């Protein structure tokens, strides 16, 4: 497997009244071709911002993104356009991300037009019909409008549009969060099928730990703009090393009533503000193991062996 994407020391800060939002603070990672890297965290932790930074949809404060070995910041014009075709995004809200005045055919065709792919309109329309078929939409629906489709079908439209330019990397930002569970399974299956058929690479962003577990080869956990932990999926779920990951996994209500009375440690307190994040480890105000060192010294992401990385001065026993 070769490396498709590398993010080095990504930083994003938004100035706001009374300070700076530290949305993403020095995050580095890489994704191998054909891999699914999951990204979990609670609202406001910066996971969606991180996804947008990788795609260059918003400018970096500092840091570098390499796609297929090439530094995005050094590319201009046509070279950048060509490279960016290889990276696409699927959004959470299929209602908000589709133009209600455009037919489904036109929505999916737009990226083809923008990048002048296909000899003429008829050829592009054929490509659109083939894409529709591939994502499980009947090509006869070409001229229909988004409001005539259900939520699950709309997400299929978003997926077809993302596939139009034949990308290698797709950033999926909460793609099933707005869907009912039976429809969610349909879309997860579709994403899995497309990955197998096309060798796609995913950065899969979600707050749903069960969904991330099902789809990902490796998982990153984010807290308040920083990575806490990154590990192969099963290792992370079976033996998390960062206290935050442990709390997060314990908090998920499991569909198993026999586990109801298990003693579970609950995270106390509220989420700290990314405007004035705590010094040192940003999780320390909610962490039962925090001591002086955690306040004074920011823990680095360290390799604990077998590809298991953790940013904590007091990692849990494996």
């Amino acid at each position: 497997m070769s490396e498709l994407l590398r993010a080095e020391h990504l930083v994003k800060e938004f100035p706001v009244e009374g300070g700076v939002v530290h949305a993403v603070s020095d995050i580095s990672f890489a994704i191998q071709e054909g891999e699914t890297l999951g990204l979990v965290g609670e609202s406001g932790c910066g996971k969606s911002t991180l996804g947008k930074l990788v795609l260059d949809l918003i400018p970096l404060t500092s840091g570098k993104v390499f796609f297929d070995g090439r530094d995005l910041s050094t590319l201009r014009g046509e070279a950048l356009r060509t490279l960016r075709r290889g990276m696409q995004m699927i959004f959470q809200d299929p209602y908000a991300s589709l133009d209600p005045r455009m037919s489904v055919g036109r929505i999916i065709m737009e990226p083809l037009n923008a990048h002048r792919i296909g000899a003429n309109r008829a050829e592009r329309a054929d490509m659109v019909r083939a894409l529709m078929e591939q994502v499980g939409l009947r090509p006869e629906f070409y001229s229909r409008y988004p409001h005539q489709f259900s939520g699950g079908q709309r997400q299929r439209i978003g997926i077809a549009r993302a596939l139009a330019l034949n990308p290698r990397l797709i950033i999926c930002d909460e793609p099933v969060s707005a869907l009912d569970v039976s429809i969610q399974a349909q879309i997860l299956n579709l994403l899995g099928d497309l990955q197998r058929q096309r060798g796609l690479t995913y950065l899969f962003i979600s707050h749903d730990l069960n969904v991330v577990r099902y789809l990902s080869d490796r998982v990153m956990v984010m807290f308040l703009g920083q990575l806490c932990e990154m590990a192969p999926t099963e290792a992370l779920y079976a033996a998390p090393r960062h206290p935050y990951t442990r709390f997060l996994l314990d908090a998920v209500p499991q569909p198993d009533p026999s586990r109801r009375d298990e003693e579970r440690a609950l995270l106390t307190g509220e989420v700290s503000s990314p405007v004035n994040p705590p010094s040192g480890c940003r999780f320390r105000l909610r962490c039962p193991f925090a001591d002086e060192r955690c306040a004074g010294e920011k823990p680095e992401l360290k390799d604990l062996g077998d590809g298991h990385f953790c940013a904590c001065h007091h990692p849990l026993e494996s």
Partner: protein
Amino acid sequence: MSNILEIKNLCVSFASDGVKERAMAVSGVSLAVPEGKTVGLVGESGCGKSVTSLSVMGLLSDNGRVESGEALFGGQDLLRLSDREMRRIRGNRISMIFQEPMTSLNPVITVGKQVSEALRLHGGMDAKAAKARTIEIFEKVGIPEAERRFKSYPHQLSGGLRQRVMIGMAMVMRPALLIADEPTTALDVSIEAQILRLMRDLQRDTGTSILLITHNLGVVAEMCDEVYVMYAGEVVERANVTTLFDTCAHPYTRGLMASLPRMTPKGQRLYNIRGTVPNLRAMPSGCRFSPRCEFATEMCRGEKPELNDLGGGHLCRCFYPKDDERPLGGIDR
């Protein structure tokens, strides 16, 4: 044990602009909430679970109408009460909390005032006593710095704190019944766990019965004693929580359980229920789930199954409730 709430054969319809026919959102739902228990009402969007609870509370929007049925609460039929009588029960003997507390809190009044107002209105306390009691309640529902938070406006609180305020307000009068409609759906998982624990603790202290409406089967497993599963305006299955998770019988419930990405390894396809929910104005004949059901036969398409007792109060609306000869196949789309 007696039931605190008994809904019998509830039918609710909705009108919409430009369409002559009314849509039947709820068709003959019956359910009971036993005293001190938590009953779950589960289903996907549009199945009628929220409409059922709003009807009971007399909170249907103007285009909604209760066509028939009863909702017995303490010997009274809530569906036949005047607005004035209903107002006396709401927020007093029955309380309700919703998914997004922001929509149920008044944005221009401090949260402390909103809660203490309820105490003055329903509890007849004077301003000073109401304030003291409100701060006590805030502490009880885990709001840090309760005294300072008394003066906060809703937008100054996080989603988790706002939901705590709502729960505090709902529990102020120690209601006999709490209706909670997706109370944790908008919250992060760590906050969700706190709120669920809070609801359980309060129930233990006050003996309040809870009708919990949710789409999240994890929340059901965590909270409920009994569960009703709704599909397309009808109850399709009812069971105690252990039975439901161990041996659910209706193909729809089985499909829901199987489509959860629990322990399914990567690369293995998830089960999915094919198709989508039917249009409320064009219900399939026979069993409403039949167009999506992999076991459906001619009989299912032509005849309507009743809610049958499979034994021990496990109810199922299906001609072919689960037997082991019928494993789910997992047909796509």
